[in-house]
Every structure is written in C-alpha cells, then in structure tokens.
C-alpha cells in the first residue's frame, strides 16, 4: 500500500511559528533544522545579500533593523490606508510602502516584497523542516490565523502558503486549533476560554464547542502586548543599573542591545522554572577613549524581581479578559475549560493571575507554545485521513452587512455562519425623491460603518421618485462554497438589478500572484541546476584527480611502446578538456566530460591491471 502523503499543521505566529504533524495518531511537533520547536517568524536580508529566515534572522534583528522584517502578521492582508496598518507601521523599524492596490509592501534591500511573500519565506522554511523530517516533499498544510482575521487577511495567508509551494487545505482559527489539540470537539461540549499570550500579541477568545462546531463567540486582545514587552522591562532594568554604574546607556549601542534582548529573553524563560538566574553578558560595551577595557554585565535576576517589573503587564491581560467576557456576557463560572496558549503563559505569575481570574486551573498536558500547531495538525489529519475525526465546517469568520443611513451597519450574515449560505433583506429609501442607492458591502463586527472593512460598493439607479421609505430594495448576500460573496440589489417595483461579486483579496491580484509563482519556479529551477552543476563538477574533478593518479603508472608500465604513447597522449587530452569544462558553467560540457573521463579512467585502470603496474 502506498504511503500516505504527509500533511502538516502550521501555527504561523507573529513572533514564532511552529509546524506539527500527526504520527501514529499522535500529534507531534516537527523540530526545525537547528533542533528547536519554534522558528522565529523573522526574515532578513543580511549585508552580504543573503536572505535569512528564522533564528538566524532574529539574531541580527537589532544590528540590522532596516532589513529585518518581523511581525509581518500584523500587516498581512491589510490595506495601507487602514488605521491598524498605520499603527503597526509606526512601531516597525523597517520600511513599508503602499502597493498599487493600497496593499502593503516591505522594502528589503532594493526589492519591495508583498507581505504574503514575506510570510511565504517563513512557511517555506517550515516546509523544508517538515520535508527533512519526512524525507519527502510536503505539499499540503493547514494554517492557523487569529480569530479576528478578516477575509482579506485569511486570503493573504492562503496566498503565502501558495507562494511557499503549499496547498492550504484550510485556514483555522487559532483558539479553535488550541481546542482541537485538547480533543475538545469530542470529549467536551460547552464554553471554553482560550488565553493566548504570545511573543507579540495577546488574544483571549471564548468558544462554544459541540458537535464539530467551534463557534468563536467572543474574541479580543491587544495586538501590541506580548513577551517582547516583558523582555523590554528586563532590558530597561539591566540598562538602568549599568548606566548608573558606568554612565553608559547600552540601548544606544545596537550590538549591546541585541545581546541584551537575547539575554533578557533567556533569563525570562529560565525564570519560568527557576527562582533566579544570572544575566551574563561579558564584553558588553567598550568605553570610549584610550585604554577603555570592555565592561561586563553580570546580574542576578530573581523571579520576584521579574514579577515586580512586569506586574502591570500581567494585570493588563486580566483587564482585557474581563472586557471580553463582559462583552460576550459570559461569566467565569460558565466556562467548562480554560486553555493557555503562547510561551508567555509559562510564566508562573501569568498562570497565577489567570487562575485567580477564571477561578479554575488551566488545562495541562500540551505545551502552550505548541498547542495551536498541534491542533492544526489534528485538523490536517482529519481533512486527509480516512478515519474522520473532528471536521471543522467552513464558516464566515466575520459578519457581513451593508452600510445604512446614519453611518451604521445592517448585518445580513453574522459571523460563524456555515457556508454556503444566502440571505435576503428588504431596505427602503432614506430620503424623499431618492433615485439612487449606494450599496456598501462591509465586513466586521462594529456597528459603525467606517470601522468595518469595505469589501466593495455599487450603485443601483433608476429608482422611482417617491417619499422616503416608499421605495423598497431587496438586498441579497450569497456566499458559495468557495467563499465568494455575491451581493445584489433589486428594485422591487421595476425589477432593475445591480450586483457585485466580492472575492477575498490578500492584497495581491491574480496576475501578481502568478508572476510571483513563476518567479519562484524560475528560482527553483536555477537553484536545482546550480546544485546539479556543482555536483557534476565535483564528480568531474574527482575523476581528474583519479586519472592524474593512475597516469604515471600507465606511462611507466607502457614506456617505449606506441600504445603507451597514444594512451598517455589521449588521457592528457581528456584531462585538459575536463579541466576546461570544470572551469565553465556549461552543464552539458561537464556531463560529457564526466563520461569521457570515466571511460579513460576505466581504460587506464585496465592497463595497470594487465601490465601489473
């Protein structure tokens, strides 16, 4: 029986990403080639021109800030003009420019990359790790996104997968994946809370679970609160004491700051299990002036001190939880389970605060920074496996509606509605003698029109002149199984109709996506042929060395004979040709010389054998 095609689940995080699969019925994390479970979602262009991805890119994030892209997830699928994008850009050191369709482009070196391209580089890295794990190509994946991602952001994530050479089987909400990892779809029904404190963002979600449906009934958070803020508190503390002692502000030195960041993160992680740790950064700074010996930074950081430094950050998470639960009208006692997600939830102070607020122990058994990827792997397995596990239904991630008079929204399709679906509603004109009506298709949860995402708009004309409210227009929303939204407006009196079709766009047009994919294919081909020529050249050079080694023996044993003279001359000719080919880049020439030299070597070895040389 043919082996099943491998499939993976990917948690494409803001700070770190994880890839997992299901083996023998158990979800497992696939380590990256550096041996770590987490791969930083960082892409950089080194000064050498080399494109770096993962931990190696993260290592130089501070020393090379302009050409290091991180937190791309905050930008993916957004419009350049949106407030969220502008807020995110303001906090980023790298250059973000508007694309042709109000999308975002990141400048790396001389090139502008679309956000899906950046995420694709991370996905490709994860794919390569998985391929090494399986020992064969991996083509299918389930990718997770935050519950609040709109269609555009989801589509952009899909595009990223496509550019990375993956068929994205499904985009799954992160809290849903976390719940899946605990098997809650089957064993547990009811409301569960997911507390996700990651490296850069904080999300809290409440899910209604049951019968294979994972309904996100409330979600909220802070996209600028995460582990990095905790690291920064440690850095500030270290720098303050160092400045007090030596009068040097380490934050101004990029090399020092990079080391401080690494040191602070390491210390923070260690303090999740130890009561105290030492931050040891030798030769952190060299004072200016002649004879300044480099200074060391050595400091003990206790868990107590860390908790003191970060107490307010922990409290912020609790406050947000309170807000989200309040909006969803869910009490802590209504919750059946509570799941912790994200590396920061390993911090004892966070666990304690969460326990205190939710009045229950969080679920244990799955590492919080791996739980989402494991859930994605479970879903991927369910989608491709024979035995049907919990199978998620495709639902609309956010509500869809139209703008109405006063700047408000009328929702036609609420979020989490299973697709395909169709809804029709009747609207009236809002003022006297109104002959046209503008239909603005919006996506989002806000009651205020401009706070939602505008998916498209069209105008229905030719309405009868009448008093306000007299003319009726049917507005129909139709979502097919592919997720394509069709909106139509029909004048009930005249039957006149206008419609629009909205396809989620991740910022890239079909042509752009095709162009990128073609480019990828060319690069792949180039890399393959470069690898092949390299390998063949190595083979040729080895043959040259072998022939050179055996040739003197042949010359000696056939000395004075015509045969010997001819053989040696031909061998030398073959050697010259091979060496010329090895210097060039012509694969065909290299291959033909490999063949020729192989024959020559066989001949020479035969002569040596027969002559006993």
């Amino acid at each position, binding site marked *: 029986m043919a082996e099943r095609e491998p499939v993976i689940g990917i948690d494409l995080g803001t700070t770190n990403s994880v890839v997992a699969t299901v083996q023998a019925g158990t979800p497992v994390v696939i380590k990256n080639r*550096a*041996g770590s479970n987490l791969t930083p979602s960082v892409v950089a262009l*080194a*000064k*050498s021109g*080399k494109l*770096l991805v993962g931990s*190696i890119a993260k*290592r*130089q994030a501070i*020393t*090379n800030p302009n050409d290091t892209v991180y937190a791309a997830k905050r930008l993916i699928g957004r419009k350049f003009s949106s407030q969220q994008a502008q807020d995110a850009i303001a906090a980023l050191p790298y250059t973000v420019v508007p694309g042709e369709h109000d999308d975002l482009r990141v400048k790396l070196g001389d090139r502008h990359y679309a956000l899906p391209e950046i995420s694709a580089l991370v996905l490709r890295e994860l794919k390569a790790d998985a391929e090494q794990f399986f020992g064969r190509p991996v083509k299918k994946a389930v990718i997770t996104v935050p519950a609040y991602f709109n269609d555009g952001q989801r589509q952009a994530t899909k595009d990223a997968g496509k550019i990375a050479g993956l068929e994205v089987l499904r985009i799954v909400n992160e809290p849903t994946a976390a719940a899946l990892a605990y098997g809650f779809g089957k064993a547990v029904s009811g409301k569960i809370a997911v507390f996700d404190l990651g490296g850069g963002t904080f999300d809290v979600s409440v899910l209604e679970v049951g019968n294979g449906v994972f309904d996100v009934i409330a979600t909220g958070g802070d996209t600028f609160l995460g582990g990095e803020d905790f690291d920064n508190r440690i850095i500030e503390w270290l720098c303050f004491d160092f400045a007090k002692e030596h009068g040097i502000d380490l934050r101004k*030195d*990029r*090399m*020092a700051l*990079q*080391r401080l960041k*690494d040191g602070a993160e390491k210390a923070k992680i260690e303090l999740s299990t130890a009561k105290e740790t030492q931050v*040891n*950064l*030798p*030769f*952190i*700074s*060299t004072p200016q*002036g*002649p*004879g*300044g*010996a*480099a200074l*060391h930074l050595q400091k003990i950081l206790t868990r107590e001190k860390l908790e003191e430094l970060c107490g307010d950050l922990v409290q912020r998470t609790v406050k947000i939880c309170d807000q989200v639960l309040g909006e969803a009208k869910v009490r802590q006692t209504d919750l059946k389970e509570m799941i912790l997600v994200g590396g920061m939830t390993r911090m004892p102070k966070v666990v304690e605060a969460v326990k205190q607020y939710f009045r229950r122990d969080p679920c244990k058994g799955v590492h919080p920074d791996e739980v989402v990827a494991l859930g994605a792997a479970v879903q991927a397995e369910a989608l491709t496996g024979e035995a049907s596990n919990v199978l998620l239904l495709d639902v609309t991630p956010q509500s869809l509606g139209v703008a109405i008079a006063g700047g408000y929204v009328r929702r036609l399709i609420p979020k989490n509605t299973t697709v395909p679906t169709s809804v029709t509603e009747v609207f009236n004109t809002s003022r006297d003698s109104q002959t046209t009506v503008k239909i603005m298709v919006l996506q989002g949860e806000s009651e205020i029109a401009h706070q939602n995402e505008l998916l498209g708009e069209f105008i229905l004309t030719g309405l009868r002149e009448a008093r306000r409210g007299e003319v009726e227009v049917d507005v129909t929303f139709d979502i097919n199984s592919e997720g394509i939204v069709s909106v139509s407006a029909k004048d009930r009196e005249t039957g006149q109709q206008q419609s629009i079709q909205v396809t989620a766009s991740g910022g890239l047009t079909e042509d752009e996506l095709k162009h990128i994919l073609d480019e990828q294919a060319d690069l792949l081909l180039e890399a393959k042929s470069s690898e092949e020529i390299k390998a063949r050249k190595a083979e040729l050079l080895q043959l040259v060395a072998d022939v050179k080694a055996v040739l003197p023996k042949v010359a000696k044993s056939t000395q004075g004979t015509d045969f010997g003279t001819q053989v040696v001359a031909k061998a030398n000719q073959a050697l010259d040709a091979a060496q010329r080919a090895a210097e060039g880049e012509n694969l065909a020439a290299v291959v033909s010389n490999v063949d020729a030299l192989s024959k020559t070597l066989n001949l020479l070895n035969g002569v040596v054998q027969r002559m006993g040389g």
Partner: protein
Amino acid sequence: MSAERAQQLIEAGIWLRLSGDGDGAKRLFEQALRLDPGNAKATELLRGPGEAAAPLAPVKPSTESQFGNPFSRPAEAPINPNAMEADWGMATGYQSGIYRSEAMPPLPAAPKVSAAQVVVPPVAPVRGSATNVVLSGTGFSAPEPRGTPPIFGSGEDDAAVDIAVDDDVSDAPLPFKTTSSRRIPAPGSPPPVSDSSGFPARSMDSGPRSSNTMVFGSPVPQATMAQLEPDEHVEVDYGGDEGEDVSVDVDVDVDEGAGSQAPMAALPVRSRASAILSQLSVDLDMAADEIRTQGPPTTKSSVPFRWPTPEPFPVAPPSDGPAPAASAPASPAAPSPQPASPLPAQAASAWETRADPGIDLPSQGAVSGPLDLLSSDSRIQPASSPSEPGSNVEKLLGAAKDLIALDDHTGAMELIVKAQAIRPDDPVAAQLRERSEATLLTMYESKLGKREGVPRVLLKDDEIIWLNLDHRAGFMLAQIDGGVCFEDLFAVSGMSRFDTARILAQLVDEGVISRG
C-alpha cells in the same frame, strides 16, 4: 634619492612601531638600510625598542597591531575585580590596562616623557592613610588613535605606563626618576629662574590643602586640576634628562578626608585611580602635542612663560576645613566665583581647554632647542606634521606600497588607514586598501577553516571574562552557540566581512573558538 627614500621608509617604520607593528617596522628599517647603508637612524632604530627605551624602563616590543594581532591578553594574571576594592594596590595593569611598561617604543623625534608620578588622594572609605599611585611611563606621545579602532582593548598600545600603588610614595620603589619636591609659587607670582634640571624652577606655597599647578608651555595641569579634587597638590614638571629625555613628573597629593567634598570622591577607589590616570593620559597627550610644536622649555631656550592672569586656577583654601564650593572647579554645582573661568565658554569639559589654554604659548619659531635634547642629529620630521598633510599621505602610501611588496598587508593597512584619516577620498589609498583587505580577508578566512563549519567556544564562561576582548569580539563570541556556522556569523555580525573575519580569526588564533 635612495637616502630620501630611506628616510621615508624610516618614518613609515616609526609609524608602524608606534602602532605596535614591530615586525613591519623592522622590515622597513632593514629596507631603508639596504637603500642607505650608512643611515645611522635606521641602524639605531633597528637595534630595537628595548635598547632605545633602556633608560626609561624595560620595554618589550609590542607585537600588537590593529590588523595583525589586535588581541592581547594582559601580560600579568588578571585581577579579580571584586578583590580590587580591598586590595587595589595590586591593580597594576588592570582596567586601566593601557598603563603598562611593555609596549611603547621610544619616540624618535617627539620629546619623550620619561616618567610621570601621580600621588592619588586617599579615599577615606577604603583607607585611613594616604594612598599614593605612582604612574610612570615611557612616553606620553602615544600613537594617534588608529583609523580603525582595535577590536580588542589593548593592554599595551597607547601609552605604556606602569601603575604601582603604594601606601607611601616616599617608600615606593620608583622605576623612574623621582620628582624632587619643589615649592610652587602662588599663582600670579613669577616663577623663579631655573633649577638643576634645566627648566625654570618653580616654587609655590603648597600647603597641605592647597591645590596649585604650574605649567610650562602646556595647559596640562590646568585641565588636570579642573577634574581633581580641591585639596590636591599637583606638580607638573617637564624635566630634561641628560640632554636626551624630557620627563614629566606629576604629583597629585591630597590630604585624607578632603575627597569627601570633591566630585570624584564618591567613586570607588579603583575608579578614581582609573579616572585620574585617564586624565593624566589625556594630559600627557596634550603635553606631547604642545611639545611637538613648541618644544619643552629648557634653560637653553628659555621659553617665554606668562603666568595666567587673572588667576585661572582655582585655589583650595589653605585651612583644613571643608573646601568651599568655589574651590571645586569640576563641581557643576559649585562654579568658581572667578569672573574669568579657566575653561573656555565653549568647552564642554575641562579637557577642552586646548581651545583657550589661558597661557601664551610661544610661537613655533621661538623654540628651536627641545628636539636637540632628544636627538640633535635627527632629520626625521614628525610624520603627522599638520603643515604638510599632503606630503605625509604620499609618504604613508609609498611606504604602504613597499609593505605590500614585502607582503606585509597588515602593516600596509595601518599606513593606509592613517593616510585615509588625513585624506579620506584618496583614490590610491582606496585602491591599496581594497587590495590589502582582499589579501587579509583570504588570510583570515583561511584561518577559520570551512565556511560551513560550526565553531565552538573552547573556554568556559569564567575563563572568557578574563580575556582582553572588546565589545565587538564579545558580540561575535555571544553568537557562537554551537549551532551557527561561520557563514551565518558573517551574516549576523552587522559588521563588514573583513572586520568579522578579522575578529573570528583572532578568536581562533587565541584559542577562544574552534575552527570550522
């Protein structure tokens, strides 16, 4: 022609020697001798720095070079910094690691300072009795900072000076000429004529809590005093030594308890010593600059001296009571009531008094003697003479070419960097630099082994902290975790490939990390 060329090579060699590249310098001197076999200077210089500096201190020629071996461990066993507070008398060479007697070759043309003594004020929290630091050096005219700063803090490069700390300076076994105790005249009074050293004699009322300075042809003490405590007694003396050497003797003597009022009193003892030594280092450089252009005063040349008026130096009260704020010139909270501040208005610190030293310096032509004190037959002009920057660039580049021809790219880089510091856009310098960098890069990379190889740190953490590295080497070392290959280190370093390769090669050379 060949004599002229030889002269150029000698000058370049001196540059190199000053930069710590003894081998490169030797090669140039040898080449100069080949061109001009009778060149006495070349012969003299070839005898080696040890001999030349013999009257001053035992000198070990520095093998350090910015490019060749910019990485040095302290010659002596490093001292645990934690132990320093308790026993800082043993701190020779630590922290202010530049103060060592091993590295500095003699200066061929510029006047040399043979010794400097500093009696550091006692610090009450640490010691009850007076504490003295004896600072002595083979020369204050330290080499100019190199174009590319050395990656490893050198313990031997800039000014080779010994620090010895004793409880009582009078009992200290001074390696150099001790300064005779002189009375210093009160500010405003003219200096007495001369003493046996050939310099104008000085006398000043130096009560136990006075803070007085005398300057001859240099603003050095003025600057120094601005940073010292109010109750210090400072003497500065450029003493001619047998017609060959010029010595600077600086005594700083402060009574016990006086430091509590001064800005530096709050510093730990070691930091204070370092601070004072650093100040002196700056002073010595300033003095060297002055002497280079003006020459030190001698009885022969009778340097014109005008006592600064009105009273540029704040004077501590002669009583034992706490010093009034006005007498603490370095204290920002207590500005001097003197209408004319000793510091120029634009000076950001006391060290910027160069702009307006408050002293009438003699014109260059007025002094002809000082160089004769060193070497009457020397034909060597200071290579960095500001009057001829262009010709210096040519000389440096010419010598660099010679070194490249001798395959000494390390030495050549030293000279090219210096030339580029004078004339940054010089195309020849850029071309030579590119060539030498390419060669050196290959050399450094060959030391690393395979680029895909993963280096490992061979020393333990507690061994590493005793190395003499700078922050860039520290950064590179921090990136080596057994998982990153050399090629990736080049990518993450944030430095040029050349600098990265140089640092890594040095770490390999020193046995700190493994090859790939």
